[in-house]
């Protein structure tokens, strides 16, 4: 009796999950399908069509797509790297030292994430043009700090706060200098948080659209913006657009899948305390 | 009249979901207890021994696999917790934060629809008893640990339950506060004379609070008796080592016969202790067992003592008493003395034990070996 009831409940739950999965995955599948269709078939067929790799050839071989990917990697990767270099010491300071207005400062860092991108991007555009940062790697990496730095600082700070200060004392007494302690003792301990927040920051930076759209043009061309190119004013190459989107989504998806377990645990661990 | 009867209680957790087969899958095994009306019973055991499970079964929060539970004369197996007429005070003070102390204490009665002035009367009656009269208007967040625990108990007893259940109510408090609260509970229960079951892993708490102690290990009742009984007449090695601080010295021994007198001898030690005469009927030459004697019952013999001379390994002067440790093989045997003499490491003393306080235990099962009557 009880068993039957539980079985029924299980079936119902699985059914609901499947419905949700279809709902969530459908756009992705749709995109994947389109990427194999020729332009003529895009609107005329749904599931039955003549698969072609023409779109892939066009995008990957005959356009500058590879360059766009490279730009994205440089900008997003650079942004995360800078965030780690700046963010880890900042997080350590926020966790360990007491200074006036500490909490206000920490909150301000977090608040960078609150502002709508479109709001800050216009003044930034003017400033960047004046300073010569417009359409440069440095400029984009800099502005991406708005995305990656707060995330990293807040997660890593939680980790530092979780390490008891006595461990540092113990290492001092054991004869280690501060730098040795930091790299030998503390870095291994914050690694889960550091890795997961850095990867998440990378994904966010990778997917960022507004900043590169407005703050860069020809020299630096991340994929998110580049995808737009396939939507010409006169003709829309949906097939190529789909290819560009699919390929650009791959790194994010691969990362997300690889670190899935790590990510949830790593972020929530810090989040409890932070 | 019995206040609470547990008859052949079993509890088995359903392990079907887990891949690993748990070896001892009975959390509670064939537990029988009879608790008289108004008695204070402590369920004592190490963590994970099934004492909390037992309490939860009595409360009705956990299903019973087999057996019967009676509260008073009522069989309560199939009654919902709220119909069992019990009061509960748990380890963590689950108070309703938006209500003040008064509201918290009155909550149960309000839920039952007791008239307002009746509630007021009862709260006012119980507040001075628990010394929370000044706290009634305060919010739970402003209370200290001890105060919260008092409110918690007040909440449990205001319903005038037939049975009061407490699960480690003191474990959140530290040293002094704990001791003070222990005294409070003892006095309170004495006043209201309610049948109480109290779960704890602290043998001191059980010893000082309970009328009777049920010692449980691995879901099996080891001994049920008054504090004096479990202390002086333990049923087995587990009870002997669990009760008392410092714990009883329990040493593996081989008994030898020297010209008609039996002696305990120990591996890697020259120590010999005469076997009390009353055990002569059960021992023989070469008999192996464990000997248990409390540190208080090991004595320092005088000049003319027959005891074996032994070297002192540790000497601790604790002010009120002095503790001496002696190596017997690789076990440190403790003795406690109130003798004012200061010894030091390496001094030689002669050891004697109080024969009437010496216990024998089976090496394999740990059961007490008793003299034949």
């Amino acid at each position, binding site marked *: 009796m009880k068993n039957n009831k539980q079985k029924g409940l299980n079936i119902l739950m699985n059914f609901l999950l499947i419905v949700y999965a279809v709902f969530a995955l459908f756009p992705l599948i749709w995109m994947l399908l389109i990427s194999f269709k020729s332009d003529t078939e895009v609107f005329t067929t749904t599931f039955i069509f003549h698969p072609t790799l023409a779109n892939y050839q066009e995008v990957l071989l005959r356009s500058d797509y590879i360059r766009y990917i490279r730009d994205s990697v440089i900008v997003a990767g650079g942004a995360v790297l800078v965030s780690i270099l700046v963010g880890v010491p900042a997080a350590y300071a926020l966790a360990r030292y007491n200074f006036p207005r500490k909490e206000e400062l920490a909150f301000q860092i977090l608040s960078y994430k609150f502002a709508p991108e479109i709001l800050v991007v216009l003044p930034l555009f003017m400033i960047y043009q004046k300073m010569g940062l417009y359409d440069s790697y440095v400029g984009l990496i800099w502005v991406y700090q708005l995305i990656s730095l707060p995330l990293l600082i807040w997660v890593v700070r939680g980790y530092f706060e979780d390490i008891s200060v006595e461990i540092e004392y113990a290492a001092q007494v054991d004869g280690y200098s501060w730098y040795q302690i930091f790299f030998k003792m503390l870095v291994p301990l914050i690694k889960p948080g550091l890795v997961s927040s850095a990867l998440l920051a990378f994904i966010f930076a990778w997917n960022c659209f507004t900043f590169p759209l407005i703050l860069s043009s020809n020299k630096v061309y991340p994929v998110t913006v580049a995808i737009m190119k396939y939507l010409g004013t006169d003709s829309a190459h949906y097939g190529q657009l789909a290819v560009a989107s699919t390929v650009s989504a791959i790194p994010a998806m691969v990362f997300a899948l690889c670190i899935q377990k790590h990510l949830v645990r790593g972020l929530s661990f810090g989040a409890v305390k932070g | 009249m019995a206040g609470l009867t547990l008859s052949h209680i079993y509890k088995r957790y359903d392990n079907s979901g887990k891949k690993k087969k748990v070896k001892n899958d009975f959390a509670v095994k064939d537990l029988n207890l009879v608790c008289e009306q108004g008695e204070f019973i402590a369920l004592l055991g190490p963590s994970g021994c099934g004492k909390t499970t037992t309490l939860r079964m009595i409360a009705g929060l956990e299903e019973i696999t087999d057996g019967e539970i009676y509260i008073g004369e009522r069989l309560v197996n199939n009654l919902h917790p709220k119909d069992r007429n019990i009061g509960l005070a748990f380890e963590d003070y689950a108070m309703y934060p938006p209500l003040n102390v008064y509201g918290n204490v009155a909550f149960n009665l309000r839920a039952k629809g007791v008239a307002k002035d009746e509630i007021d009367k009862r709260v006012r009656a119980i507040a001075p008893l628990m010394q929370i009269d000044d706290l009634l208007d305060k919010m739970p967040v402003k209370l200290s640990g001890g105060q919260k625990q008092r409110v918690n108990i007040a909440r449990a007893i205001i319903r005038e339950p037939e049975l009061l259940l407490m699960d480690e109510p003191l474990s959140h408090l530290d040293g002094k506060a704990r001791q003070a609260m222990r005294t409070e509970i003892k006095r309170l229960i004495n006043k209201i004379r309610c049948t109480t079951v109290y779960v704890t892993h602290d043998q*001191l708490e059980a010893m000082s609070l309970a009328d009777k102690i049920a010692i449980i290990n691995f879901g099996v009742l080891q001994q049920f008796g008054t504090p004096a009984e479990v202390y002086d007449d333990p049923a087995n090695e587990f009870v002997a080592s669990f009760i008392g601080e410092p714990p009883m010295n329990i040493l593996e021994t081989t008994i030898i016969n020297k010209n008609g007198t039996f002696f305990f001898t120990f591996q890697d030690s020259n120590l010999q202790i005469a076997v009390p005469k009353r055990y002569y009927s059960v021992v023989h030459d070469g008999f192996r067992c464990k000997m248990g004697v409390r540190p208080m019952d090991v004595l320092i013999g005088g000049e003319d003592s027959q005891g074996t001379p032994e070297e002192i390994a540790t000497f601790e002067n604790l002010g009120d008493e002095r503790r001496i440790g002696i190596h017997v093989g690789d076990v440190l045997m403790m003795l406690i003395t109130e003798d004012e003499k200061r010894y030091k490491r390496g001094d030689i003393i002669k050891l004697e034990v109080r024969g009437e306080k010496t216990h024998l235990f089976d090496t394999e099962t740990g059961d007490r070996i008793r003299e034949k009557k």
Partner: protein
Amino acid sequence: MARIQLENIKKAFGKVQALDGITLDVKDKEFFVLFGPAGAGKTTILNCIAGIMMPEEGVVKFDGEIMNLVDSAHRNVAMVFENYALYPQMTVYDNMASALRSKLYKTDEAEIKKKIQWAAKIMKMENLLERLPSQLSNGQKQRVAMGRALVRNPNVFLMDEPLAHLDAKLRNSMRTELKEMQANLGSTCIYVTHDFMEAMALGDHIAIIKEGKIVQIGTGDEIYYMPCNEFTAQLMGDPEINIIDAEISGSGNALAASFGINGSTVTYELPMDSGVYAKIRDRQLKRADIGIRPQHVKYSFEPAEGYFKATVYSYESIGNKSVIVSDLGDVRHSQLRMIAPNGLRVEPDSDIYIRLEIDH
């Protein structure tokens, strides 16, 4: 090993004066206990010796050499922390080896291994070396923390309540082991505790600390039998010493103390002790608080000669013996504690008859 001296150490955290002129002299190879209630500043003293904190005033000397400006890595001290502070990512073996692998105390691996095995044997944890701290129980962690200090050859061992987080049984057995270990090693050790049994059992000398100041320094016996004030007397002993309000009367060599109990008055002659007598005479004392330890309070459940009547407030076991607390009625220090054996059947609020053995 070294002699440790502190001279007039002062340290404040914000507005709180944590240490207020601490002066200590710990001789070479001495086991020195800092004893006091929580928040007295004991840990801060250790931190100042270890160099983790800088005192604002005063001098820390190791063997006469001023160490104030030497950082903790170069002070060569070994410390056991209250929360053990094991490195969670390292195995027990690596934890213990960490000091010997640092640049300052570099030792070759074969030597490290020998030392760790030696320490592991003393601490009875040879089977734990490959585990991570998260796989250890509190008692085991505590052993590892001790072991980590033991493998070194420091100027001084600093121990901050190493037994505080263990349960009572383990604490007592570890205390005994520690006592034995210390006797074998013969090292300078400064040990912080709030447990008077640890202080009494372990310390060659004990310093009582209260609110950042030293109240008394002496051997265990000195402090137990000749406490310099009520605070010390109450701190030393469990159950706590009884303090009773008394009126001093008489003159010359026959002083007597009277206590008001339940409305009636009980008078005892004070023992002949010229020192105390002289003091009382000098100050013209009329009233005094008299302390008497619980084991010197005799009781009986039958009326008897020289005993006065009171009521039982509670009866509780404290391990190998029990404490009866009696209620003396409406006086300032109304509760009187006394020692009784385990297993008596004593009902609260029953009558009890008490005699004080004041000659102790």
